[in-house]
C-alpha cells in the first residue's frame, strides 16, 4: 500500500489561486485506508473549499486512482461536471495525480492534495510500516526478509554501524537496529555464514527513472 499524508490546506488554496471551479478526485484504495483520500476526506475537502469561496463542480471516487484508464472512464461518466471545472484537486498518491493530470490534458491543471510517502506493510489495522524501497535488486534472501536498504536509515549492506546501541538504532532509539534484527533471524535459521559474505555495492542502474514494465501477455487480453 502507498502511504500518503495531507498537505496544508493553505498550500492547496495557493495552488488553486485564480481557479474557482474545482473537481475533486479521491481514491478508494490506499488513500481511503490512510484516511487521506476516502469518501469522508473528499467530502470534508469539498466543504472546506466551499467555505473558502470555491465552487466544487463534482467529485469522483475511483477504485484505484492510479489506473489511468479508470480515470478516463470517470471523466466520461461525469463529463458535465468535469467540463465545468477549471482545475482538479486529487486526494490520492502521486500516481493518482499523474493519472488525472494526463487525462485532463495540457490545458487544465491537476493539483495534489496529499504528499506521497512510501510503500507500506499494514502491520496492524491503521499501522503502516515501511519495509521495501522498490530498489530493483532484492536482497531479502540474504537478510532474513528484513531489508537493510529500507530499515537501516543509512541503507548499510554489510552489518551494523557504530551507532547501534543495545540493538537499537542511533537515528531512532525506539527502533531496533535493522542489522541486529537480521543477525537474530539469520542466527535462528542457522545461516550466520550468509552474514559473513561481503555484499557488493548496490547496482543503482536498476533504478534509473522512470521505470516502465510492459507485461505483453496482459496486453493481448486487454
Amino acid at each position, binding site marked *: 500500500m502507498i502511504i500518503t499524508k495531507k498537505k496544508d490546506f493553505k498550500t492547496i488554496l495557493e495552488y488553486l489561486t485564480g481557479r474557482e471551479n474545482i473537481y475533486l478526485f479521491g481514491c478508494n484504495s490506499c488513500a481511503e485506508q490512510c484516511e487521506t483520500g476516502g469518501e469522508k476526506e473528499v467530502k470534508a475537502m469539498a466543504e472546506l473549499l466551499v467555505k473558502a469561496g470555491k465552487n466544487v463542480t463534482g467529485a469522483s471516487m475511483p477504485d484505484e486512482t492510479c489506473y489511468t484508464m479508470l480515470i478516463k472512464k470517470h471523466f466520461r461518466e461525469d463529463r458535465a461536471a468535469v467540463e465545468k471545472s477549471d482545475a482538479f484537486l486529487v486526494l490520492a498518491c502521486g500516481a493518482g495525480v499523474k493519472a488525472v493530470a494526463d487525462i485532463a490534458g495540457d490545458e487544465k491543471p491537476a493539483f495534489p492534495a496529499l504528499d506521497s510517502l512510501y510503500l507500506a506493510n499494514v502491520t496492524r489495522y491503521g499501522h503502516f510500516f515501511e519495509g521495501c524501497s522498490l530498489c530493483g535488486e532484492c536482497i531479502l534472501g540474504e537478510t532474513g526478509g528484513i531489508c537493510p536498504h529500507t530499515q537501516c536509515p543509512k541503507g548499510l549492506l554489510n552489518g551494523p554501524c557504530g551507532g547501534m546501541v543495545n540493538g537499537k538504532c542511533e*537515528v531512532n532509539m525506539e527502533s531496533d537496529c535493522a542489522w541486529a534484527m537480521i543477525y537474530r533471524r539469520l542466527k535462528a535459521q542457522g545461516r550466520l555464514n550468509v552474514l559473513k559474505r561481503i555484499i557488493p555495492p548496490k547496482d543503482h542502474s536498476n533504478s534509473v527513472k522512470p521505470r516502465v514494465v510492459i507485461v505483453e501477455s496482459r496486453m493481448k487480453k486487454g
Partner: protein
Amino acid sequence: MQSFKDSILSGRFTITAEICPPKGTDTSDFLKKARLLKGRIAAANVTDNQRAVMRLSSLACSVLLLREGIDPVFQMTCRDRNRIAIQSDILGAWALGVRNILALSGDHVSFGDHREAKAVFDLDSVQLIQAISKLNKGTNVKDAPLKGGTDFFTGAVVAPEAEPWEPEMIKFEKKIEAGARFFQTQAIYDMEKFHRFCEYAKGFNVKILGGILLLKSAKMAHFLNKNVPGVTVPEHLINELESAHDQLAKGIEIAARQVKELKSFCNGAHIMAIGQEESVVNIIEGAN
C-alpha cells in the same frame, strides 16, 4: 619524520589524535592545535564533517597537516559522496601526498546542521574499504586500470563494546577481509572487555589503537550518554569527575590513566579530545 605506518608496524606503541577542521576557511586555530601536537603523536586524524556538521574538508585539512610535517589520517565517510566522488577524492588525496586513510560509515545527516540534506551512503564502510583496496591495486571499483594507483595504509573503525557483539564482530572481520590494516576503536571504557577484544584481534594481521575520549567535565559525560550513539560513560567515571575540584584536569588524568593501561596489551591509542586538542599533550605526558 617516521610515518604513522612505520611506527605502528614496527611494534612500537603508537599514539594518534583527532583534529577537527574549522567551520570556515580560517585555519589559524586548526594549525595552532596541530603544531602543539607535532612530534608528540604519530599521526593526526582529520575528521570528515563529524556529526554531519559541515566544516572545511578533511582532504584539504589533511594536506595542510602534511605541509606542517604532520602525518595525517584522512577520514572518509560514506555519507556525503557517491562512489564516483569517493574514488575521485581518494585519488586526489594520494596525489597530494596523503598516505593514511580511515574508512567510516559516518554519522547520519539527522544529527547534523543540514538535516534536510540527502544522506548518500552509496557505499557502506566495508565496500569503501574494498574500493580503497582496488585503487591500491591500480584499478577503479569497476576493475578498469588507472593511470597511476594508490598505496594507502587503510584503517577502519570498530566498536568493541557494541551490543549485541556478534554482528559487530562479523563486520570487523569483513573489514579485514576487505583490506583494513589498522583499527581505531570507538571510545572504550570497559578495559577488561577491551582486553578480551585485543586478545581476539591478535588472531588477525591488524593493528588496534584503543579510542580514548577526553571527558572535559561530568556535564559532558552526561551529554555523551544522552546524545552520542555508541558512547556509554560508566557511572564511576562520572562520579570521579563530579567530585574533582578541577574537572578538566581530572578528565585528563583519567584519559592518561587509560592510555597507560592500553600500553600493556594494545598496539596504540587514538585520543579524541574534541575541541580540547591542546590537552592531548598533557594526556600523553601523564601516560608516561
